[in-house]
């Protein structure tokens, strides 16, 4: 599918928001792919980390917000630790999740969880699993 680029698309509001929330130099990414290579769940993702960085650069945010990949991320920070350009890739992923959540898109349905699971899993897992928070606005 063809991508039509112009300066408005490359400086869209969504891209600006992502840059503000993550505080990362998106343009520094030279697509080496080391983040993807070390990501523990990349083989299950529909869009892998380096592709995600590329799509942010190109302004294809909506595609990312509707991907499964951003919810498969375990926040292990391996990507940001290994990036040779010092980009904290995990923060860019978090920015994408924030945009979705703040829009009211709730990913984990608590009713679907089995009670016995809730009994056993440490609290930290449950909270992280939801990633829910009240928007300040």
């Amino acid at each position: 599918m063809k991508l039509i680029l112009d300066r408005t698309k490359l400086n869209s509001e969504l891209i600006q928001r992502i840059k503000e929330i993550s505080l990362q130099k998106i343009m520094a990414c030279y697509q080496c792919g080391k983040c993807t290579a070390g990501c523990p769940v990349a083989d299950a993702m529909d869009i892998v980390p380096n592709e995600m960085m590329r799509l942010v650069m190109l302004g294809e945010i909506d595609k990312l917000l509707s991907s499964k990949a951003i919810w498969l991320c375990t926040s292990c920070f391996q990507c940001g630790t290994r990036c040779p350009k010092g980009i904290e890739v995990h923060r860019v992923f978090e920015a994408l999740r924030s945009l979705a959540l703040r829009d009211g898109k709730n990913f984990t349905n608590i009713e679907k969880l089995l009670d016995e699971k809730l009994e056993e899993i440490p609290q930290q897992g449950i909270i992280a699993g939801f990633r829910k928070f009240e928007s300040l606005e």
Partner: protein
Amino acid sequence: MKKIGLFICHCGSNIAGTVDIAKVKGYFNEYDDIEISDDYKYMCSEPGQKKLRDAIKERELDGVVVACCSPRMHEITFRNAAVSAGLNPYKVEIANIREQCSWVHQKEKDKATEKAIAIIKTMIEKVKRDEPLQPLEFNITKRALIIGGGIAGITAAIDIANAGYEVVLVEKRHSIGGKMLELSETFPTLDCAQCTLTPKTVEAGRHPKIKLFVYSEIEEVKGYIGNFDVKIRRKASYVDWTKCTGCGLCQEKCPTKTESEFDHGLGERKAIYTLSPQAVPNKPIIDKNSCRFFREGKCRVCEKVCPVQAINYEMKDEIIEEKVGAIIVATGYDILETEKIPEYGYGMYKDVIDGLQFERLNSASGPTGGEIRRPSDGKVPKEVVFIKCVGSRDPEKGIPYCSRICCMYLGKHARLYKHKVPDGQAYLFYMDIRSFGKGYEEFIQQSMEEANLLYIRGRVARIMQEGDKLVVWGVDTLSGRKIEIKADMVVLGTAVIPSSGAKELAKILRTSTDEYGFFSEAHIKLKPVESMTGGIYLAGCAQAPKDIPDTVAQAGAAAAKVLSLFGQEKMVQEPLIACVDADLCSGCGICVTACPFDARMLDDEAKISIVNEALCQGCGACVSACPNKACQLRNASPQTYMAMVDRYL
């Protein structure tokens, strides 16, 4: 009354667009000391210079002020013009009414014109007081010192020696040849490295004008361009090389084996050893750290078997003094300590090796006789992964620059591997392919097409050992998939860094390096072989990573610069340097410590401070330091400047 000529340049519209030239010219027509006030569109052009010369001759001017651009542009032009008309060049001064006037006050034309007049007035005051100085001349010692006996140093040495001048070639290891001696084959032709190198090393070894100091290092350098005093430390080899015939018996009989640095840890050597089978000179040294005699006082087998009694355990380091006129730095490169990137397992897993180690494996004189075998168990690897950009282009863990040679040498390695193991598979992980030289791109494409090398675009995140295999976790960004390969061997293309000891050497030479330790060139585009220090030139990887053709070319260029220096009768130096008023000097010595160029010293007999005119760069530090105002810069005394300031105000 002086007879000074004033020449105002329009500089097209650069000056004339803001400053009212006619008004300025008119102002100085009736000015004291001004003999002629003239103007022209482009003073630096041939007709402009002719005006200057004609006026000097016809009006018998004894001083000139050119009101134009910055002196950095054309001071030399106008001074040379004056010389050809018979006027001393140090009676020519520039009044900068462009960078310091017209360019910065473009919106205030009247004020700019007033300022231009004021600037010219001050420079007239200076010219009135300028002495007609003579340039200083010094003898040149027409001998060259070359630090580093790799391909760069050897090339430059042969060029200079063939021109008839003596060369002192100093090399850290006990044989010349540098890194090229360790290589097996070179890209893109896959020529045998030793076959191309040894004719040069042999020539350098036997050339009557090349004085070879191997197993030596530079201890001290004093002096200046054309006149360096160098101290060389020849390290104790414990073998008398004047007697040694290179028969090799000592090496054969020595009972101690240790890890070979030449084979980068993959092979062994004896405690007494020659560097390689093609060593020039072909003489051994004893390594104190592994020799049984030095460690425990036992053995002495080499001494017993040597047919000419050349072993001497009592030998000491020697300091040799040499006088030279020019120095070429050709200290070469090292590779980054790969332990800095622990995720690749270098140092932990035996089958993860670097590029230089692979060269030794492939080399007929190497630890496996040229067979590609795994260091861990000696088996032939069938799946080999080559990784580019290890530490390069990596601001976080390595160095941010590109090491330039890895794309080609790893492509070469993969190709050579396939020659030797035709049923093996080679994978190359890359970010980009930089094949910029003659024949390089064709070589890479041929490798892909004919040798079935798989180029995978992506970096490797981690290498883990599982059983006897190395699991490589990489990525193919072009298809968006994670890649896992269970490899038998991994070759890392590690970053190129300056040779160890480069920064210390730079301090000894009093020249500068960049933040990585590469020697700084005087201008990155126009002066790639001259260092920041006069008389010191650069060649090869000491200046920046590069391949062999570029190294040889740069070495030739450095040699040419040396020859152009030696081609002069005498060396000419600007006389605008410090001088001492002997009546005012109290001999306190503060200027001696203030001088950054070691150009000041105390004369013990006269009990005053004196200036080494060849070293002084006219920086003025001693002038400000002197408590008695005894020290001054020629043609720039406080009285002159006070008069200039008075006139301006």
